[in-house]
């Protein structure tokens, strides 16, 4: 989850997010190197005592500063396109969960085996137990098994919302009348938080998402007890 004064991306808990972090590091490093070089060039150009009032020309440097940026851009584009296509692949999901965005809560449906449906409202700040996270906790969490590809089918009931969990590398708009699909695999058991990522009215900041990943052997027990409760 996010922490105060955070500067970078959250730690990855899915293979896709790991790839995204890797490519972000690669691209940011190139951007920082280029910016440093440009800044140094400008600095030396502005502070130099060597001035020439005639037009200067140089074939060599023109060739270099065409080829080098071209190669750099190709080196950025190739991994980027690879990860882009990788994110779109649906790889035999073990479980399908449907989530519907409402104003202002999420509802989850597990209809693969039995009909499990529940709503997930934010826990108001005054009702938090010490140790819980403000504006991130929900009364019912979406439970998924670890190491299993999970397919999410995302839509909305009223206005556009967006289902996002940064640590899993997932963000998908929930659009009324449209079913969007995304998949993820959770690497280890934990609780992951996200927030609605498309402005949807007064309580847009107060409809978080919390995903609880538990080992596969315990997943059936958890769903059964959830079914009994609801």
């Amino acid at each position, binding site marked *: 989850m996010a922490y105060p004064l955070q500067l970078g991306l959250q730690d990855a808990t899915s293979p896709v997010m790991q790839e995204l972090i890797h490519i972000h590091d690669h691209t940011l490093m190139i951007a920082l190197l280029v910016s440093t070089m440009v800044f140094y060039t400008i600095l030396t150009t502005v502070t130099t005592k060597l001035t020439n009032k005639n037009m200067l020309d140089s*074939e*060599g440097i*023109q*060739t270099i500063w*065409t*080829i080098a940026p*071209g190669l750099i851009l190709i080196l950025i584009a190739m991994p980027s*396109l*690879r990860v882009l*296509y*990788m994110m*779109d*692949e*649906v*790889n035999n999901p073990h479980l399908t969960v449907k989530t519907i965005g409402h104003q202002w809560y999420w509802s989850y449906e597990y209809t693969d085996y039995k009909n499990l449906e529940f709503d997930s409202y934010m826990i108001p700040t005054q009702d938090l137990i010490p140790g819980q996270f403000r504006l991130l906790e929900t009364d019912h969490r979406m439970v998924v098994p670890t190491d299993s590809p999970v397919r999410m089918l995302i839509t909305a009931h009223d206005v556009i919302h967006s289902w996002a969990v940064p640590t899993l590398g997932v963000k998908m708009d929930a659009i009324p009348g449209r079913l969007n699909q995304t998949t993820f695999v959770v690497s280890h058991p934990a609780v992951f938080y996200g927030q609605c990522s498309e402005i949807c009215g007064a309580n847009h900041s107060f409809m978080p998402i919390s995903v609880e990943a538990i080992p596969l052997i315990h997943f059936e027990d958890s769903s059964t007890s959830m079914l009994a409760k609801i």
Partner: protein
Amino acid sequence: MSSMFRMVGKQLKTHPSLIPLFIFIGGGATMSMLYLGRLALKNPDVSWDHKNNPEPWNNIEPNQQYKFFTVNTDYSKLKKDRPDF
């Protein structure tokens, strides 16, 4: 049109450092146009021929690769596991 090419060719002979520029820009433009053409012709989201193929999105085989590039999925190995209509 050909006079424009001849002018460009003359400029290239005196300034050969412009050749990489043509390669990169020309290559980029060619790749964009080729991909746009592929999207226009082979994308199953678009219906061009209303008589013979009115709904291409309904004619995709279960193991047909409709994306340009795959990383982990081998489309020829996919099984068909949904009902026919």
